[in-house]
């Protein structure tokens, strides 16, 4: 392959690129032997080899010198596996939610068709439709039923039951359509009891600041929060954690996280971490609700999300902010002390 020893009987020197490959140990054993035999006899090629080695060493040193100095240990493989599993769980949950919503819609359309005479004659028996697992999308919608309905919202199970047992009796083959004022279920915070409270606090905890956190929030324990966030849990070390609340976003993005901790003075400190747009919205809403009472730290960047899409993996910026009734300097200092990664 090398062919640099002779051309038409005339000696030829080793090409520079082959010396690079030789020093990079990228040649076969026979090629190496060929080169070493030539080097043993050729002073010019030995000089060239030394020059190439010097260039190679300088490049190595230059790149190594500017390599990032590791100050945190390499994350354990188990952590990567946990992140992978959390992502899979989120994907499965999303598919399940979409399926349930689709099934609910199909059921509702079918019921409407049946109520308007599409079903078999005389079979207009009172029906009950249960829409399971309300999500942020379904809870906030207006439900319009074809007939007088009683809406029963059961917070413990999260189900909404539409009962038309008091509907007007059918006269003839066709059920008269009675329109009634549309009823709206308002979005409200749902906070199911966490399986294991993070910290038991006997003192009464003032919770007036929470008014800014609208939407569907879920209180979770530490283990669940770690699984959902892939281990990126913002918290101020040394302070007890009273509550961890998550708001799902959908897609492959991690949820918005609010970690509630208590300062020794008794005041609550909330650390909000999530996608930049969501956290900014939340901070604006929060500031509007509690003017002059509670402050927020300067937002700081946290590890971003990478969301798969057809066009690649866009990076979604995430930030955190500390919210509490403290001076801004103290809040910024707290934000700097926050440890997001484990």
């Amino acid at each position, binding site marked *: 392959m090398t062919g640099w020893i002779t051309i038409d009987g005339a000696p030829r020197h080793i090409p520079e*690129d082959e010396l690079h490959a030789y020093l990079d140990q*990228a040649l076969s054993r026979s090629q190496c032997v060929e080169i070493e035999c030539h080097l043993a006899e050729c002073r010019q090629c030995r000089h060239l080899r030394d020059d190439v080695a010097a*260039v190679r060493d300088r490049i190595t040193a230059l790149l190594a010198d500017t390599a990032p100095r590791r100050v945190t240990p390499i994350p354990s493989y188990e952590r990567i596996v946990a992140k992978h599993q959390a992502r899979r769980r989120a994907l499965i949950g999303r598919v399940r939610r979409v399926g349930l919503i689709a099934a609910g819609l199909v059921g509702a359309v079918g019921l409407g068709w049946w109520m308007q005479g599409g079903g078999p004659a005389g079979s207009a028996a009172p029906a009950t439709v249960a829409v399971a697992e309300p999500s942020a999308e379904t809870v906030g919608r207006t439900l319009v039923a074809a007939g007088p309905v009683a809406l029963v919202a059961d917070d413990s199970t999260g189900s909404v039951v539409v009962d038309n047992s008091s509907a007007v009796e059918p006269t003839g083959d066709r059920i008269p359509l009675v329109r009634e004022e549309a009823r709206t279920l308002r979005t409200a915070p749902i906070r199911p009891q966490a399986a294991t409270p993070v910290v038991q606090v006997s003192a009464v905890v003032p919770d007036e600041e929470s008014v800014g956190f609208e939407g569907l929030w879920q209180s979770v324990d530490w283990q669940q929060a770690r699984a959902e966030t892939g281990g990126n849990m913002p918290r101020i070390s040394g302070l007890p954690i009273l509550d961890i609340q998550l708001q799902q976003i959908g897609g492959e993005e991690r949820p918005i996280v609010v970690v509630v901790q208590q300062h020794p003075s008794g005041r609550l400190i909330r650390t909000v971490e999530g996608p930049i747009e969501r956290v900014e919205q939340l901070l604006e809403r929060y500031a509007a609700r509690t003017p002059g009472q509670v402050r927020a730290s300067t937002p700081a960047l946290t*590890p971003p999300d990478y969301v798969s899409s057809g066009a690649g993996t866009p*990076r979604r910026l995430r930030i955190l902010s500390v919210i509490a009734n403290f001076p801004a300097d103290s809040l910024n200092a707290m934000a700097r002390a926050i440890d997001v990664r484990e």
Partner: protein
Amino acid sequence: MTDDLERLYKSTYTAVVRFLYRKVWDADRAEDLAQEVFIRAMSHQPEKPRAWVFAVAANLARDEARAAVRRKKHLMLLTNDPLPMSTPERTADEAVEYDERKALVNEALATLSERDREVLLLWDAGLSYPEIAEQTGLAVGAIGTTLARARKRLLDAYDGMDHDRRRAAAHS
């Protein structure tokens, strides 16, 4: 396969971070991207995981560069007091020296053609010639030539810039 991936993770993670760092010049981002690469590897279970990992890392770094341009405006709002997540401990002098060197290497790397830079960085990350060839689409025999050219050009560019910097410092 899982064991293979775990072995690969333990032996290659640092190299992947290093490879990504040369492209994004941010230690935290490089770490984030490296973890993303291995999480994806778990889903895809590639046949040649080592080459696959570096190929995906290169793609992520490319996406990152495009996104960086888009979010420049957004970051203006956040430069107030960003959290130093893992800023290495250095003295002030060391930090200045390090930053200058890093900037020079960055600039010198930017003078290379994309193919030369890619080959050089893959070599620096520890890939063999056949692996580099597979990833870049070059013939194995062309890797030595490309590396020789890239190394020489990088050093020439770096030395030239370093010379200019020292001369400017002497005049000021």
